[in-house]
């Protein structure tokens, strides 16, 4: 019984079916789809609020995406905890600056990896806010509801991602 919890990897189909069932439960119990990226917009606004006070609430974007600590922020916090639990159980917790696939193409300099991750983070967040969703909100939750906005977004995530990955690994690796 306990052995499957300590395995480092499960079949991607078992994981996908599990996420699908999880989405039934979030719809049924919380009346919400699985989604993550708005949490980072709220965190960013709440951090700004520490310096500039409550007037940050008045920004037009935070009138649309209210700066609350709610269901989705706890969901994202839960992801950190759940992943940590899973990694601890299987002995897969690693303190790692440079991922192996990056290292074999671009070397082991943590500053280079950190710089590109920082730039990538800026762009992906800007894109997630622009597209109004990410790989979970559009890519899984929206597509399974057959939303037109989500199918277009999910396809564009992968078109942009595949082209960029081939470009950077083709030109610089």
């Amino acid at each position: 019984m306990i052995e499957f919890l300590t395995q480092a990897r499960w079949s991607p189909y078992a994981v996908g079916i599990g996420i699908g069932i999880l989405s039934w439960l979030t719809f049924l119990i919380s009346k919400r789809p699985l989604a993550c990226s708005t949490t980072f917009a709220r965190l960013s606004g709440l951090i700004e609020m520490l310096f500039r006070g409550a007037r940050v609430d008045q920004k037009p974007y935070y009138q649309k995406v209210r700066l609350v600590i709610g269901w989705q922020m706890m969901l994202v916090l839960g992801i950190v905890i759940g992943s940590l639990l899973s990694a601890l159980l299987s002995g897969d917790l690693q303190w790692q600056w440079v991922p192996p696939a990056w290292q074999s193409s671009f070397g082991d300099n943590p500053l280079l990896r950190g710089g590109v991750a920082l730039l990538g983070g800026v762009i992906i967040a800007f894109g997630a806010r622009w597209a109004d969703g990410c790989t979970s909100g559009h890519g899984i939750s929206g597509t399974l509801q057959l939303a037109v906005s989500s199918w277009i977004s999910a396809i564009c995530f992968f078109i942009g991602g595949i082209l960029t990955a081939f470009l950077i690994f083709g030109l610089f690796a």
Partner: protein
Amino acid sequence: MQTNDPGNKRVLDAPTLIWGLIFGILFGFLLQKGGATKYDVIIGQLLLTDFTVLKIMLSAILTGMIGIHLMKSFGWVQLHPKAGSAGINIIGGLIFGVGFALLGYCPGTIAGAIGNGYLDAAVAGLAGILIGSALFAAAYPRLSQGILKKGDFGKLTLPQLFKVNDWVVVIPVAVLIFFLLFWLERAGL
């Protein structure tokens, strides 16, 4: 119908928060077990050498789609499709993709990557995501009056677009996903 409107509260009620945390722990556990918290797995998908991410996503969509539409037909749940436009979803999606390939995590899996101990995610990636979110909030008033409105189609689902019963779309999409997964396995990907 619950609208999930927070009202004027800064922190939502405890049951809402606790359910969010429980679902998050399960989601994070699954993502880590699937390998989706790892840069190598995500970049492998974008370089078309490792199809783990697509397999997880497609089997989640297949399972979720059938269950949600069954529950909808019983009147147990309502759909929450996001409104969209060509300007929002095509341009935003492509920008997202560029960041996706550079970062090698997405906003959900980066939370899992942090739990997995990956410091490029926890330090650099997270800082970038917070900065990018703030930049968008600053640009939003201008964007919302222009490009985000281009080609607006609102909250639209595929069955509404084709003016058919949900199952006329659900069943073919399910069959298509099933055969795509079958073909991926047959091709040894």
